[in-house]
């Protein structure tokens, strides 16, 4: 292992993380809900209950974030350098896995760890390890 100092951005990443924490804090303190994106998307897709409206507008807020950023800066657009086949397989795995495992980076990673849930700790360690191994295989074994 060696540290990639040229891409290392501790302060902006920390600041972004604080913003994520603040949004999660407001959602639990105002609505009493944990902020988990996969759960919100899944609820939006499958549940027609009284939770539907806040989930829908939350997702609209996510979609509107780049537009808001463009109002006061020139954000760097994502550079997704993958074939559509790879994206489709990855998307299916992410969707299926986050629902079977009941959460993703936000629901388990941020909120679960914040409420000291052992389940979320196990989930977070598991998906991070799986991510490490997958990148290792793709970048250092397969190529």
């Amino acid at each position, binding site marked *: 292992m060696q540290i990639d100092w040229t891409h290392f951005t501790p302060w902006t990443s920390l600041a972004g993380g*604080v913003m994520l924490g603040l949004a999660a804090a407001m959602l639990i303190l105002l609505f009493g809900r944990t902020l988990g994106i996969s759960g919100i*998307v899944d609820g939006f897709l499958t549940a027609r209950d009284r939770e539907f409206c806040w989930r829908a507008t939350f997702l609209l807020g996510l979609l509107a974030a780049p537009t808001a950023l463009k109002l006061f800066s020139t954000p760097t657009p994502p550079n997704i350098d993958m074939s559509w086949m790879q994206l489709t397989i990855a998307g299916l795995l992410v969707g299926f896995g986050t629902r079977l495992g009941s959460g993703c980076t936000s629901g388990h990673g941020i909120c679960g760890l914040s409420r000291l849930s052992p389940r979320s700790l196990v989930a977070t360690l598991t998906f991070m390890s799986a991510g490490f191994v997958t990148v290792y295989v793709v970048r250092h074994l397969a190529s």
Partner: protein
Amino acid sequence: MRVVISFVLGLVFGIGLYVSGMTQPSKVLGFLDVFGDWDPSLAFVMAGAVAVGLVAFSFARRRGRTFLGDELRLPRITEIDAPLVVGSLIFGIGWGLSGICPGPGIVDVGFLDWRALVFVVSMAAGMVMERLIADTRGAKSLVSRDG
């Protein structure tokens, strides 16, 4: 009122994902590449978010109710079971293949990136598939989910 608040929270969360670097797949893959040139930035994202979250969740728990007067709806399930581990493994593989997790995928659609849309539509399909399988097996309800 609620719909406006949640729109703003989605906006703050989306901007936070951008600022943190998570909407850039190469940044996420740089973090997951611990055996190569490792970019530890995303550990700082987690640290910042959890530092704020720890305070908020312990405060919310002690208070018992929200500021709008609702009950807290926290996940009740505590058992570490096979679906949790297997599901997280599958998610981690997809995350490692793409460098995209659910939140950043949606923000990247907001950048009008068609590849992000392919990812998000596939993700939605994966979720529906899991739901169909769970329903046929008569498994868990929505309230038991962690996030």
